[in-house]
């Protein structure tokens, strides 16, 4: 078996498929990329039994068959720089995969591929189209809020559903919640209601990153496939129910503060130096005196008081948070200023960007002491 293709095509296909290859797999073949030599094409496959990625690249091939090589070895070898349009030839010789570039040649030991698993197909599922950019934007805006514990698989997932002209992405670990609404321009039919494990959502977003086209999502009860020209990602999805989180969004804030994002980012950075092991920061908002203050105190380190310029309205409030939960959401706020809304001592704080299209919303629960 022998195939010739462009260097950059193989390089990017390997680096994408490598992501799904198992890192500590019990089965050696799971940490491999399976390369299938087909007529006029190479198909690269990898899976960790949670996500599977298949990529197809055009190639001049002679002979058909499969070979599995450790993903890390191949991708590291291809990470060398070089003329991206130079031809690359791969050939299967004596149980080795010989990779020839114009100036270098590598021989990689292959792994028996009989045990390489079949990546399951989504059978009789619903099909919907969505822009890859929308999917990436949604996943990236909320994934950090998902629960890292798998005790409740629903909370370790990103909930994706369709609401009118928006696809909504939500994640929560019950201490904070992030919601991103991504407009879908084409008035497409069919509802969406999915729970994608957040780890898999990162893989999906990374794999689709370099693309800007419409992908086809096909899902059944336990499985979703996302397909586009040359790539197919298959992921486990959770067959469960996401809590009806809209009921816990505070409706009428009692205190509101509008601040510059850069101000609060800088102030928090300094303040957290003195926060305790729970990252506790105390926020004091006094609309009468027009003060928004952040106080931190650590008996071993010292303490810090900092004021932030803010436009304040409503009642005065003093409330504590885990600063990590607040700083997490800054990555999803793309406007210069943001609003903090408080609804009382034991209620969640709502953070929103201040811009014409508010598509992001973030809820943080306060600390109770």
């Amino acid at each position, binding site marked *: 078996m022998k195939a010739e293709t462009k260097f950059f095509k193989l390089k990017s296909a390997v680096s994408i498929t490598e992501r799904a290859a198992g890192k500590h797999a019990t089965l050696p073949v799971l940490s491999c990329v399976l390369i299938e030599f087909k007529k006029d094409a190479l198909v690269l496959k990898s899976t960790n039994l949670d996500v599977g990625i298949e990529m197809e690249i055009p190639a001049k091939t002679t002979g058909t068959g499969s070979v599995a090589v450790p993903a890390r070895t191949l991708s590291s070898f291809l990470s060398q720089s070089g003329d991206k349009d130079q031809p690359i030839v791969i050939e299967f010789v004596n149980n080795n995969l010989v990779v020839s570039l114009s100036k270098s040649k590598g021989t990689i030991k292959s792994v028996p591929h009989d*045990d390489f698993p079949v990546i399951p197909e989504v059978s009789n599922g619903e099909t919907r189209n969505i822009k890859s950019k929308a999917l990436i934007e949604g996943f990236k805006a909320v994934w950090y809020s998902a629960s890292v514990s798998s005790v409740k698989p629903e909370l370790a997932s990103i909930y994706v559903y369709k609401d009118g002209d928006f696809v909504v992405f939500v994640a929560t670990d019950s201490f904070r919640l992030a919601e991103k609404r991504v407009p879908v321009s084409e008035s497409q039919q069919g509802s969406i209601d999915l729970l994608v494990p957040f780890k898999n959502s990162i893989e999906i977003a990374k794999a689709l990153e370099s693309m800007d086209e419409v992908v086809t999502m096909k899902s059944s009860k336990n499985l979703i496939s996302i397909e586009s020209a040359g790539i197919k990602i298959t992921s486990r999805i959770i067959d469960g129910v996401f809590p009806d989180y809209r009921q816990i969004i505070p409706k009428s804030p009692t205190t509101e503060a509008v601040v510059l994002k850069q101000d609060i980012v800088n102030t928090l950075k300094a303040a957290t130096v003195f926060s305790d092991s729970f990252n506790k920061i105390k926020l004091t908002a006094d609309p009468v005196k027009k003060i928004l203050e952040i106080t931190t105190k650590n008996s071993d380190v010292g303490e810090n008081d900092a004021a932030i310029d803010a436009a304040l309205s409503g009642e005065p409030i003093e409330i504590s948070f885990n600063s990590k939960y607040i700083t997490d959401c800054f990555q999803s706020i793309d406007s210069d200023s943001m609003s903090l809304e408080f609804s009382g001592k034991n209620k*969640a704080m709502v953070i929103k960007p201040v811009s014409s299209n508010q598509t992001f919303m973030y809820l943080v629960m306060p600390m109770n002491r």
Partner: protein
Amino acid sequence: MFCIKKQARGISKIISTAYQHIFSCSTSLQNYKQVYTVGVMNPTTDFSRMWQTALIEIESAVSQANFSTWFKETSILKEADGTVYLGVPNSFTEEWLRKKFHNSILKILRQMNNNIRALDYVITKDEGRSMAKKIVAPAPTMTMPLQDFYINKDDNLNPKYTFDTFVIGPFNELANAAAKTVISNPGQVYNPLFLYGETGRGKTHLMQAVGNEIKKLYPNKKVFYMTSERFGNELFSALQEGKAQQFKDRFKKYDVLIIDDIQFFSGKEKFQEEFFHLFNLFKDTGRQLVFSSDKHPNIITGLEDRLRGRFNAGMVLDIPEPDHESRMVIVKAKCATHNITLPQEIVEHISDTIKDNIREIEGVINIIACQAQLKNKELSLNEVRNILKNNAKPKKLLSVKELVKIVCDFYNIDEDMIYNKTRRKEVVRPRQVVMYIMREDFNISFPSIGEKLGNRDHTTVIHSYNKMKVDLKSDPLLIQEINQLRSML
């Protein structure tokens, strides 16, 4: 996972044993069925033993790497009609086992049990797969009360409400049977199914269980649950925005419509009119309707007659006060969900004290569980008594005079007449009502009722009480009067 399963099994066992207890006098078919289920419920342990044995054989046949990749997280879930259902963690494993190991697994299983004919795979939720590394929350941040909102937004059903968690006793046997009939044949019999009973008797649980079960059995049937209040609100805003037609069209796609607390429609004519058309649409196209209310449709005031008639045309069922044994089963079942066991005397005491409201029982058990956890010991009967005293609905103290005054005001007669010997018709009825309420609600002895109401003989009181009981069965107006009076006390 294991621990949850065990607990669930524990509950069903309690329920089933209690079942036998309730039905111990009758030799109904159901009784046998229950005993039988208890018999086959336990083999889960047999399954795991069987699968362990099978795994030993498989392990010797495949490589260690293969074994730990594909077989580590598998288990036998159940066996039905000769088919063994194997629980697997994901579709990848399913695909691979089906392709590579299907026949060998089947062969091994058949060596152990000749009755096994087939093998199928079920993807189990992987909750708790990594239970061991349960993370501790960064302590002091409060959590959102998310667990209360696990509601499916497509159908509004709360998946928590299923028949598995529904305690059946003589008091709700009939309603349960009717619900099961509806499930086996949605839209064809008992349409609409109308359940009524006071708050906290399990109407919502039963209705939602019907919805959840229909969803499970007929995946292409669309179920929708809503309260009548929400129906009203949404209709109201639809009317305001001039989108009434869209509102109505929305319901056309559902096959089963469940509406809770119908009594809120009382006096709202426009809602009733829209609801009436919706009702006809469902009924005419053979789609199932399930309703609940706190009263019999005949005595919901401000309800149009045409709706009343239509409700009555289906199956109208009462969920009465749970009987003592059922209450005990409920107490035990609720305890089991908290993983606590209470001594028999406490269980009896709780079920003796809280008579008519299952929700209250639930509340008290919550408090007991919480306190037991705080104090880290079992609560004594006295402590439970205190909890009950503070939390159960206070029984209002009322003198005989006050009661008589309320009743007389209601019937617009002179108070003295009740105590007099007169037997005029307009006085006899209220007097009987007073006696009935004294006996029924305040548990006063017949002789002392007689003594307090103008020195009457206790046989007179017994006669009045029995007469009221008989009349109540046939006279909806009387039921309505008594209920109104009770709410005024």
